[in-house]
């Protein structure tokens, strides 16, 4: 990976389609924050060696003073010509944080997406739709500009810890954290090599939160072709009994019928659907995995 010519999708000048939560006072800051320091040198990032992330630039983010905003805003960079995500920036404040549970994001197919399972992967699915700016921070659901194909390992071990840190700080202090996530693609690869994550608490000038890390888009035990997202078990994890299993219906977006009383979900044609009382009837469009994640069990008759 290191030998490949680097073309980092840093989108030095970008257009933003979303400015949710933006105030006029934050506008100029947004425009400044649409670039990332050219001094970030991905070639200097060490190869993955067992740690999900590594400090970059001594853990000091590349924000300039002008980019720091104590007014909440969020921006999501336009996709590049290959359909890849670029850079997402937010000044995270409590007013941006979601009050509802996350919605369905299964309809978005980021570049490099494959639905593939390995028994040894947590949750089995190799790839997640990884929010660049986590849902808990800005409440962004199925925004294709904010979702990349990321391994489970990147999502849970690499990115989530930093999202948690930022979220807690904002909730406890009611202040802001400047937050920028930049996916790094080598050449024309459809799968990111990883993400550069930067965070700095604004009002206390980084006393509370300060980090600049590169999180690796890898999965222990899996060899990945970053050009396409194809993968195979590399044999380093021995309990790989299934090797690779391309899934079909479980990751397809479908409409299911929910019984909100029994917490079962059904295919729309299931005979059990007719017995559901109107007050307990709901429809859900998403993947089977997501329905289960929301706490519903598949009906044993229609086996959705």
């Amino acid at each position: 990976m290191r030998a490949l010519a680097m073309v980092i999708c840093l989108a030095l000048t970008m257009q933003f389609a979303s400015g949710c939560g933006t105030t006029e006072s934050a506008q100029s800051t947004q425009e400044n924050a649409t670039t990332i320091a050219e001094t970030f040198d991905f070639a200097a990032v060490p190869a993955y060696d067992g740690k999900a992330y590594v400090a970059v630039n001594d853990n000091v983010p590349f924000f300039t003073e002008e980019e720091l905003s104590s007014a909440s805003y969020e921006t999501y960079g336009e996709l590049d010509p290959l359909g890849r995500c670029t850079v997402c920036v937010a000044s995270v404040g409590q007013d941006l944080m979601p009050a509802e549970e996350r919605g369905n994001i299964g309809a978005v197919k980021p570049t490099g997406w494959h639905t593939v399972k390995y028994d040894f992967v947590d949750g089995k699915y190799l790839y997640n739709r990884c929010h660049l700016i986590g849902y808990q921070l800005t409440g962004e659901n199925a925004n294709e500009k904010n979702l990349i194909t990321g391994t489970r390992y990147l999502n849970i071990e690499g990115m989530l810890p930093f999202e948690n840190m930022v979220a807690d700080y904002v909730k406890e202090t009611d202040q802001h954290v400047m937050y920028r996530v930049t996916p790094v693609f080598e050449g024309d690869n459809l799968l990111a090599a990883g993400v550069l994550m930067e965070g700095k608490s604004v009002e206390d000038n980084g006393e509370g939160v300060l980090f600049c890390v590169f999180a690796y888009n890898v999965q222990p035990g899996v060899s990945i072709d970053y050009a396409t997202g194809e993968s195979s078990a590399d044999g380093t994890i021995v309990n790989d009994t299934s090797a690779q299993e391309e899934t079909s219906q479980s990751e397809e977006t479908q409409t299911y019928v929910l019984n909100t009383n029994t917490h079962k979900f059904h295919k729309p044609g299931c005979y059990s659907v007719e017995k559901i009382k109107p007050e307990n009837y709901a429809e859900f469009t998403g993947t089977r995995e997501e329905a289960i994640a929301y706490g519903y069990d598949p009906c044993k008759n229609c086996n959705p």
Partner: protein
Amino acid sequence: MYIIICLDDNNGLAFNHRRQSQDRIVAEDIRKTVGEKKLWITDYSRKLFQAVSNLEISENPKEEAKKGEYVFQELETLDTDDEQIEQFIIYRWNRVYPADVSVEIGAEWKLTETEEFPGFSHEKITKEIYCRE
């Protein structure tokens, strides 16, 4: 001395010279736990305990705390074999954060009490008390 620390799911304590997290309910519980005894902290922790009157600020709290006094340790790991330590009080965040400093409680310590309560920014805080075997 009694050592008070906050740990994540991986026994992480701090990252990049900063605490992983904070919770005002935990700070209040520490205040109640300490009661009238001294609570030794570094200047870094002062903001968390503005309502606590019996604070002692030191660059080396563990060196200065006497028997029966409390030390709230945030950024540095410690030797859990230290014979001066009478008890560990661990607040677990029940989440995962970045970590470059962690604390592993040795086998000589026995979990004697566990309590769970909701935090302000954390769904569940687990308070554990460890005493020597």
